[in-house]
């Protein structure tokens, strides 16, 4: 697998990471070597093996339906770069 520069730009855009044109080639090389390393996994024969979605064989733990969290607007907003009253404030997004 080999990424082209357009795909590198696209990945960066989807991840909302600004990439200057001068960085594209270096990132492409880095990403390609990472992908190449991971591709070694293709050498393993996985025919008939169910996909694994977690690293443990535990059963999923479920929670009872009780309200035991929240009620702490101050704490939730404490790290907000901007706020207005108890709202987060962000640059205007209009659909």
């Amino acid at each position, binding site marked *: 697998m080999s990424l082209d520069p357009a795909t590198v730009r696209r990945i960066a855009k*989807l991840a909302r990471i600004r990439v200057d044109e001068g960085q594209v080639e270096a990132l492409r090389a880095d990403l390609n070597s990472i992908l190449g390393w991971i591709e070694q996994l293709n050498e393993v024969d996985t025919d008939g093996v169910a996909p694994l979605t977690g690293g443990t064989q535990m059963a999923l733990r479920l929670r009872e339906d009780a309200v035991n969290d929240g009620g702490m*607007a101050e704490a939730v907003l404490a790290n907000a770069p901007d706020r207005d009253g108890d709202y*987060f404030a962000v640059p205007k997004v209009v*659909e």
Partner: protein
Amino acid sequence: MAYTIEGSTGAWEVVVGLEVHAQVISKSKLFSGAATAFGAAPNSQVSFVDAAFPGMLPVPNREAIAQAVRTGLGLAAEINLVSRFDRKNYFYADLPQGYQISQFEHPIVGKGVVDIALADGSTKQVGITRLHLEQDAGKSLHDQHPTKSFIDLNRSGVALMEIVSEPDIRSPEEAGAYVKKLRSILRYLGTCDGNMEEGSLRADVNVSVRKAGEAYRTRCEVKNVNSVRFVMQAVEAEALRQIAVWESGGTVEQETRLFDANRGETRPMRSKEDAHDYRYFPDPDLLPVVLEQSWVDALKAALPELPDAKQARFIREYGLSPYDAAVLVAEQATAQFFEAVASGRDAKLAANWVTGDFFAALNRTGRSIENPPITAAALGRLLDLMADGTINGKIAKEVFEAMLDSGEDPAAIVDARGLRQVTDTSAIDAAVDAVLAANPEKVAEYKSGKDKLFGFFVGNVMKAMAGKGNPALVNAALKQRLG
């Protein structure tokens, strides 16, 4: 008769599939213990999980999962004993995680079916493709500040069911009937309150058009339509738009659109080129959801009687018409009210009173079935007064109005106003004689064959008796006198 739209090149068929987002009724959120109640102070129902603080882990709510299973069972759908949560990646200010936890490849509920009834008396099956669980996003307010949007995360992480239909719907009417029926089922199940004004139920409407016999053409998705009426209007408006595009030689592009209710048309959403590259992958924070068949069976055993079953029972047990039965079962509270009135009484008469005078009174007073202006017990006692001959049907309407005004018991109203039906034949005979004596020329006309005048005599006798005459006895007395 199939619904089509006549264009300049002939008739067009409309193909519609709906994605309905239904907010799950649960005390706490899908993956956190924060409350779900509507209308709380901003950001007061937010846990660190909902705000996506680093290191916070989601723990699924057993009840939210049960609600999805109940809904699947109510839609006669396959329940998948193994399902999985995935991440749907996109950036938006009201989505603090940067992804929505949803179910992509392995939803909790598979194929099911909803039966809808149409105005012409026919019924139709609409297939359900799947139902999956996902998180709702927070709420953005764009109109509070000139340059900023305000974000409230109270809704962030509330459990949603996305219910996807097959493209089986062929008209605005069918689309409306489908949403109404689905809403009714959800409300019966108690899995979603169906409140479209508060956004607990919203629909994405997928529309395409085609000529008879063709394969599907390109569809467009009209997002976030929030009333049954708007769903119907959006189907028609979008179909008309697409027909105009095809007939002018253009091509419909697959895109996401919004319905503008004021203009009655759809318009494209501001283009988000990469918006559809969601890069789904299994959420590594969550193990697969594995259900026990016995747990599913227990949920199934505890389901309430659903609208279709109740309608069939009303037809069978009470002898109601399919239409009356459908009207009475649409809301569980209405069905309950009807059964309380009908119990031990003439069910057909009870149905007429509930769907007629009582519904009219609800509208007029702006009251709801949960808080009715006349209780089922009181309406039942009014019916009893008719059944035992204390009052006739005409006087019953007068008593009903008085019950609305005063809240008094029907028997008390009848006594206080002297509305008791007159069954004393001598009083009826006297009234009949007086009416006949006053109208000799009408009597002559009647006797010469003008049968229709019988109603004239009945009306006048009843009028003379202030409406209180027993109609059967009045008729009998007149028949006898007029020979």
